[in-house]
């Protein structure tokens, strides 16, 4: 197989892993205003404090895969998206330290609560706008300070906040009981409906905004092959809505939400392939020399399965509901 293609797929995989994993813990931060009591917030924080660091590592991994395998795209995208990336990093910093300091503070707890909420929200919004701006096709190397900001990218920014919040609701259903669980399910139902509407709008808007995506999706027979994506998405959304109703199913909503993410992401990749930066740079053009791509291969084949094994094991150790008696370190 073509090495550049392999790394393109790996990059996509890393992004998807990041979006799903950090998605639910960023989403919990976004949900904070709906869970006001200290006990509820303690519970939410405890349900992710052992995994957020590992989840965020996928962001670093995605970054270094882009750096190592597609240096030209790494340089182009990051320097063009300067402002939203800096804002995202600041957001991630504030929410990251909130984990450590919130549990050790008394008076300043509300401050860390807002750091967690604002940091998570800003980071998510920026990720969404970066994605939106890339899909829309921002000219790399252009120097306008607000090139990345457009109605479309703001919309995708808000869309990602809704999507992460939904994922977080489903995670919370899995990790809590009683009141918190009921509220999470109730919120989740509203969010599914909102997300389905947003998905429809984003899909249509992308078709209008990006000619290549339009050509790919609506050109000839492709349409038939690709139809399962939107149909399955609608089906998943409906199942999710149903599962969160009444006495919610414990784990299924989370997996359905993950399914929605995968479908949405697949739809996007299908539309953009083989571009890393739409209209400008394909992954073949951006790829590093073979010597670099080959050197990294054994590392990927040996360590990625290992990473899966111990990450899964870690999740298993902490599986089930979060218990109130569990103290930290």
């Amino acid at each position, binding site marked *: 197989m073509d090495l550049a293609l392999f790394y393109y797929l790996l990059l996509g995989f890393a992004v998807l892993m990041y979006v799903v994993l950090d998605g639910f813990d960023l989403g919990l931060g976004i949900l904070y205003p709906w869970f006001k009591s200290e006990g509820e917030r303690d519970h939410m924080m405890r349900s992710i404090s052992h995994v957020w660091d590992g989840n965020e590592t996928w962001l670093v991994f995605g970054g270094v895969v882009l750096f190592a395998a597609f240096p030209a795209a790494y340089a182009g995208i990051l320097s063009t998206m300067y402002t939203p990336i800096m804002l995202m990093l600041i957001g991630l910093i504030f929410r990251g330290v909130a984990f450590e300091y919130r549990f050790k503070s008394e008076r300043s707890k509300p401050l860390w609560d807002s750091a967690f909420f604002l940091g998570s929200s800003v980071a998510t919004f920026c990720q969404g706008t970066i994605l939106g701006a890339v899909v829309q096709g921002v000219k790399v190397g252009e120097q306008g300070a607000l090139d990345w900001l457009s109605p479309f990218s703001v919309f995708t920014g808000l869309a990602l906040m809704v999507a992460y919040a939904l994922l977080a609701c489903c995670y919370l259903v899995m990790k809590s009981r009683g009141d918190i669980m009921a509220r999470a399910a109730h919120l989740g139902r509203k969010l599914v409906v909102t997300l389905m509407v947003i998905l429809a709008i984003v899909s249509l808007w992308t078709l209008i905004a990006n000619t290549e995506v339009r050509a790919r999706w609506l050109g000839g027979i492709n349409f038939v092959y690709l139809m399962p994506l939107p149909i399955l998405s609608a089906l998943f959304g409906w199942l999710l809505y149903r599962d969160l109703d009444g006495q919610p199913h414990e784990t299924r909503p989370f997996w359905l939400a993950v399914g929605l993410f995968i479908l949405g992401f697949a739809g996007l990749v299908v539309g953009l392939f083989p571009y890393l930066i739409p209209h400008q740079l394909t992954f073949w053009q951006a790829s590093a020399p073979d010597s670099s791509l080959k050197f990294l291969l054994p590392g990927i084949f040996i360590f990625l399965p290992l*990473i899966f094994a111990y990450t899964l094991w870690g999740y298993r150790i902490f599986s089930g509901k979060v218990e109130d008696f569990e103290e930290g370190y």
Partner: protein
Amino acid sequence: MDLDAAMLSRIQFAFTISFHIIFPAITIGLATAIAIWEGMWLKTRNPVYFQLAKFWIKPFAITFGMGVVSGIVLSYEFGTNFSKFSELVGPVLGPLLAYEVLTAFFLEAGFLGIMLFGWQRVGEKLHYFATCVVAFGTWVSSFWIIAANSWMHTPAGHKIVEGRFEVDSWMEVIFNPSMPYRLVHMLLAAMLTATFLIGGVSAWYLRKDRDVAFAKKGLSMALWAALVLAPLQVIVGDFHGLNVKEHQPIKVAAMEGIWPETEAGAPLLLFAIPDMENETNHFEVKVPKVASLILTHSLDGEIQGLKSVPPEDRPYVPLIFFSFRIMVGLGMLMVAAAVWGLWLRRKHPQFENKPFLLLMNLMIPTGVICTLAGWYVAEVGRQPWVVHGLVRTMDIVTPLPAERVLFSLTLFVVTYSTLLLVYLYFMAKLVRKGPPDLARLEQHMLDVNAPSFALEWVKKLQREVVED
């Protein structure tokens, strides 16, 4: 100095990386210490070891958290502020950093959760395993990051094809000429940083006459560690210096403040104010011939001086000159403190000698200061090159508008200053709170050394609460 975007980007990178390096320097050493204590506890069942591990895991956790969040910034800053650098050397540095993530970051993150929160979910052996893996992960991480950094000082194993770096031999890239020295020097620095942190905090408890058994053990172990590590660091530093002289002679000239093209029998400058414009030093306080002796192991050995290269190829001398003296001076103080501690040990009065305890207490930040100073010597000393002899720093900066970089730099300065204050506040708070109560800890651990026990323990607790 022109505050254009290029200079602002460099200031921002220097600022963010200086802030970041503080935390790994502490966590590498602390993780190792915690792994040692937890192992000693499992072996001897002496509860003081358990107390040490249980106490220091908290400062470790907040320090690790700070390291994580500030590290993510760095992995994106190459692309945002140094896009040409990323394109140019991405094929060399990218895979090294990718290996760091694959072999270290995921490992640390995966087992950190178990180390911090797994006390009631896994058995004690498995917990110890997790602690060891986290400590191992910090070492592996330094291996890759130092390999990448060293390559920028002493590049090897590459060729340049169509203006882009390609790798001929990855072995030569990773084990480039200065890498082994740099790695050992950095790891020892990290160990010493943690050693003097632990020793200093323990000394503080002894001065306050509280948690005495705990503090005695901590101070004693820290002093043994310092006695081995500090002199070893001096020796490694000397070897490293010789290696730098071979590959980056101008850096050495700046460290020593040597201006002539070459100087035989160069003096060791204890103090001086280097003057770059007039290419000389003011107010020299010197020991004749000693610099030559140290660097060439001969009294009349020749050393290359700054004037052997044109001014535009020289780094900013004063910063290197003073940083080097701070590093070496504090390093010598560490050796002295360790030796004093050994001398006091004969009748165990090192726990009572007030001046000694005060010194150890005051020396808490020396490791961090040394690490930063050493880092400046190395990095500023490489200028004006970003990849020594091949790529100039000024040629690789993203052509951004100055105000955009100023905006992000301001954000970082405000954020990081706030965080540093918060960090110091919580560290002080943890230290003041002191180690966990031994009797309670012991009972707790007797009851909770396996997940099934944990549930039993909770049920018991709940019963007690109900009966109360």
